[in-house]
């Protein structure tokens, strides 16, 4: 009877997902198809476009700025994802057990996520200003700096990492807090009664139970990190000297400042493929390593 109950659910399954599939199909898949067509055109969105086949892609391969922007995007992603997800897990664990002011702490961690990018940009532009900023002021007191941060081509990308980790940490913390609700208290007590130390409890109980959330956050953060744009737009604008020109910034510049929309669409398609590879790999890895309850 269980077999029958849990057997093939073709009809039911499709009925459940149909509304979502239709809506996302119309508003998500169709536009992407159009973008794909656009990548085969020379199109400035103003005059009539011309079809150029794979020319845009051929130009991409030889474009040094494009290749550099891939590298920068990957560097950014490789730093951002572990820092934000790992940091969030740490903070969530700190907030898990009752503590005074916990509501205050939870809300303050959430504030940067809710704050508009414009306001965040202004704050960081000020904090990290080489001459007048608070960061160099404080660092100067302990004998460090002054640093160029957003104005130094060698530091700018890392400054963006710091800014975006700050802005997104709270989001990951919320997800982890929700997931931690599913960690039964008695399981932890049992482990500790068995003599397991804090680290062992974490490694063998908490970490596996949090792995579904971790998988989600890693995939989600990766997708977002590969598309980082807003924070760069309100601070460094892709500079200085292209130091923060990541893929989407390059795309935006090509499409809306230089009117090469077809070329920009080709860039977007390459980004899409990179993201797809990452996501599929992570999901595959996740399917083998993630522990859902039996």
């Amino acid at each position, binding site marked *: 009877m269980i077999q029958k*109950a849990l057997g093939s659910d073709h009809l*039911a399954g*499709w009925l459940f997902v149909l*509304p979502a599939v239709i809506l996302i199909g119309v508003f*998500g*898949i169709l*536009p992407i198809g159009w973008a794909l067509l656009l990548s085969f055109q020379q199109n400035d969105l103003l005059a009539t476009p011309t079809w150029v086949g794979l020319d845009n892609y051929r130009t991409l391969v030889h474009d040094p700025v494009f290749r550099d922007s891939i590298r920068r995007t990957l560097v950014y992603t490789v730093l951002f994802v572990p820092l934000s997800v790992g940091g969030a897990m740490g903070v969530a664990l700190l907030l898990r057990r009752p503590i005074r002011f916990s509501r205050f702490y939870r809300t303050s961690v959430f504030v940067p996520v809710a704050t508009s990018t414009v306001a965040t940009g202004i704050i960081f532009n000020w904090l990290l200003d080489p001459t007048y900023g608070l960061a160099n002021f404080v660092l100067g007191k302990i004998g460090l700096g002054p640093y160029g941060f957003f104005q130094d081509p060698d530091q700018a990308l890392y400054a963006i990492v710091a800014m975006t980790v*700050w802005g997104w940490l709270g989001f990951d913390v919320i997800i982890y807090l929700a*997931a931690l609700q599913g960690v039964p208290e008695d399981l932890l007590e049992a482990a500790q009664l068995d003599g397991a130390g804090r680290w062992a409890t974490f490694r063998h109980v908490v970490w596996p139970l949090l792995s579904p959330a971790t998988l989600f956050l890693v995939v989600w953060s990766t997708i977002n990190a590969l598309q980082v744009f807003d924070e760069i737009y309100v601070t460094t604008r892709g500079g200085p000297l292209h130091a923060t020109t990541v893929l989407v910034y390059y795309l935006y510049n090509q499409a809306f400042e230089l009117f090469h929309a077809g070329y920009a669409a080709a860039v977007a398609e390459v980004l899409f493929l990179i993201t797809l590879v990452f996501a599929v790999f992570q999901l595959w890895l996740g399917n083998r390593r993630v522990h859902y309850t039996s």
Partner: protein
Amino acid sequence: MRTLPFNPRHLVLLPLAAVMLVPLVWMLVTSIETLPETRHFPPTLIPAGIHWQNYPDALDAAPFGRFFANSFIVTGAAVIGNLVLCSLAGYAFARMRFFGRDITFIALLATLMVPFQVTMIPTFLIVQHLGLVDSLGALIAPNLVTPFGIFLLRQFFRTLPIELEEAARIDGCSRLGVLFRIVLPLSMPALATLGIVTFLWTWNDFLWPLIVISSTNQSTVQIGLASFQGAHQTNWSLLMAGNVMALAPMLLVFIFAQRWFVQSLASTGVKG
């Protein structure tokens, strides 16, 4: 066995909270300064006086009453839509086996992988074909369900003990019944999270409403705030007053929804 008179976790959490709150403090301070006072750099964190007038002035500068109403309608619809549709789809992907399940899941997820800067123009054209341009429908329809929510709930649902669902099915409960009577009540934290995040994103959405809405009657709060930023000049005091007012509903929703994060501690009857 404490060596400190207070919980050592405060040593980490307090500075962290301070760092996180800096922009909010700056926004509040700027919102009560006069415009000339805002024209200083480095910015002052301690204002000379309190100029509450900015708040009524900001509300007067544009029909913000209308904007807030529109934002609430759109955001409310998006939250409800997502809670319902993502639950249905997320559950199907989590528990059911059906033809093309994994490919469809990847395809839905793939729609997140193309940046909005590229898809916004064709999305506009589609919305136009549907006759929704310059209406709240244009803001609601594309946001009724997101792959993010489906993914989130799928992960969460899979962590629940399947025995409960199997038992209910054996008892003759339909799939829908299992979802609504067994699974969802156990998923309050995830649902609360999805609700908060959907609220946040729809409320803060700026670029899409800017493109698809032209008339004042259909504008949202974010578009209204953009009107404080001119080509060469920005009215910072009004802009920040507006931003604080726009931020308030989100923080309130978050504080209110926090009860679902601490819910299960109470329900598992852990000793206090």
